[in-house]
């Protein structure tokens, strides 16, 4: 169990370092940075004190703290899959529009 904690904390630490790096390079916005910072800090706390989630579990009526985490993670993951699918479709449509416009323009020059 201790090894698991160390590995997981290392993982969280790496992500936090990269997050700060990205923020410094202005690749992500401040609000985005805060949300992710907060998220990964909470993950870190939960790794160190897994019992903390049991309060939440009791409050929500779910058996164990670990289960709450799994349920919550699944919801978040599915939301993101949906979000990215829609985003991808929008991007595809934009790319198609650009390519189409270029092809129409090229032929206009010829005529």
């Amino acid at each position, binding site marked *: 169990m201790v090894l698991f904690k160390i590995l997981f904390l290392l993982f969280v630490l790496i992500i936090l370092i990269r997050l700060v790096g990205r923020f410094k390079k202005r690749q992500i916005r401040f609000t985005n940075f805060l949300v992710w910072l907060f998220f990964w800090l909470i993950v870190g706390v939960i790794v160190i004190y897994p019992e903390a989630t049991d309060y939440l579990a009791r409050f929500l009526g779910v058996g164990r703290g670990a289960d709450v985490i799994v349920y919550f993670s699944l919801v978040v993951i599915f939301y993101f899959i949906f979000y990215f*699918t829609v985003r991808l*479709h929008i991007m595809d449509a934009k*790319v198609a529009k650009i*390519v189409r416009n270029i*092809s*129409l323009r090229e032929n206009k020059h010829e005529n």
Partner: protein
Amino acid sequence: MKIVIIIPAYNEERTIRQVVSAVLKESSLVIVIDDGSTDKTAQRAEEAGAKVYRHIINLGLGSALATGLMVARQYHPKIVVTFDADGQHRAQDIPSLIEPIKALRADFVVGSRFLGKSFRQRDESVPATRWFYNWFANLFTFFLFGVRTTDSQSGLRALNLLALEKINIQSQEMEVSSEFFKEIKKNHLRLEEVPIKGIYTDYSLSKTDLSKTQNLSTGVKTFFNLILHKLIMR
């Protein structure tokens, strides 16, 4: 009557010249949408006498057809015909294909390889797997969009001005064939099917296109794209 023929093509240098020459007998305006081919498709099509519009990258059959319709609108035609580039359609089917539009009976005509033919009666050139795949695609098209058709994956279609104006294609790839039926239903267009003969050569069978031969993975992908389309698009 002004007819524009649209041929979406992707890496079809082997067949495009013949196809363009053949359809030029039916209409003087043949437009090839070269969907980012890496071979000499565009050059061959131009040599044969087609007007060529190039996508700088490969977008997929749906996008190529959408570009084709957009281009066709600029020429103010009375009828638009879509035709496959791999040589599986016969140019001599075009007159019977556009007849229902000329007679003002239909807004949209599909050239069906399966009309009025059961599995046993099918053309001997149609492979059995092809027949079953198409049967499933027809069922699925009916299930999703509520239109009965005997050949939901046909690449030979004719549109009149109304259909050309109303039909708005969103899908990028193979699922476009079914999307046409969705648009037909949505815009209350009159659909008619006309029997045509498909030419299944070793070449057209080796292709992994939906209107041509569909391998299983493209089929599954098209299936999911259609469901996604149904869920996300209006």
